[in-house]
């Protein structure tokens, strides 16, 4: 079933070179889930939904307070249908992992990957590695935007 609320792709900015290995990404890119005090017991990892090319520009042109690029190593594109497949095939991942739209005034494309608060570090790294291995498509850099 096609979920029209979400596009096929999402992107996650890369601010740390350690998150890149050759032409792929390490699990580290998907481990920094933040506890924002949600009542649904999920932690958040920011992504942007790839509704159109504006999402790519929004991520790659984002700057820090000092004016330097927030994601100077580019952004990783993830395939939503592959995340859905992981959830269908793996009961644990289905329980632990979710995603949402969460637009911000500064970024209408903003959303989150969500990880259950009670996921232990074993689970967190298993999920992160599954995302990196099975759901990652490619890295996009500012030269391509």
């Amino acid at each position, binding site marked *: 079933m096609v979920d029209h609320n979400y596009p096929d792709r999402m992107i996650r900015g890369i601010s740390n070179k*350690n998150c890149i*290995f*050759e032409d*792929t990404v*390490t*699990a*580290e890119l998907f481990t920094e889930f933040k506890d924002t005090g949600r009542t649904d017991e999920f932690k958040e990892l920011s992504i942007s939904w790839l509704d159109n090319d504006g999402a790519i520009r929004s991520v790659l042109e984002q700057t820090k307070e000092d004016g330097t690029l927030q994601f100077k190593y580019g952004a990783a594109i993830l395939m939503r249908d592959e995340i859905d497949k992981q959830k269908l*095939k*793996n009961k644990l991942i289905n329980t632990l992992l979710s995603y949402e739209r969460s637009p911000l005034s500064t970024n209408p494309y903003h959303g989150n990957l969500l990880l259950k608060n009670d996921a232990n*570090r*074993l*689970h967190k*790294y*298993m999920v992160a*590695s*599954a995302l*990196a*291995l*099975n759901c990652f498509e490619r890295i996009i850099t500012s030269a391509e935007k």
Partner: protein
Amino acid sequence: MREDPTFLSEDSNGDNSFSEFHRFSSYLLPSDELSGTVSGTSETLRKYLPYTSSALNVFENVNEGISSIENPDVKRFVVELMAEFLGVLAGLAKSEETLVLPSIVMIVNDDKSVLLEWIFTDFRIGFLIYEATDRSVWYIVTNQNLEEFSKTGYLTHTSLRSTLDFLLQYALRNS
């Protein structure tokens, strides 16, 4: 008194013996100059992995990055893990004529833990090393070409050898 760190590479008899590898592993553990000792690993590998010149690359990133690990207990466990890894790899690689193995990626996290990730096309093996070794974990995740499964567990001193046996056998069989 400990022996010179290069003692194995000075021995030129070409014997690929597993017991000597244990000497190397046990030599590493009490070392108070861990980065210096580990940097001698490639010389040792040349002797003990004679069929697998490409296997020399496996530890390249760890060798380069180990001095950036600030926590001595984490560093010690990383060295122990790599020494044991080396021993298991040497034992398994004896019958392999050619191996193409990627370098292990090492990342020092903000919380001082260390992630070691071995990235293959169809699977990934990872180790997350903490100061308290009973918190350290391993995982393996595969894609649909390899039945898309995942396994994970805690990494303890007592389980190190059996865990590495399982993971490296899988890696060599499927790389």
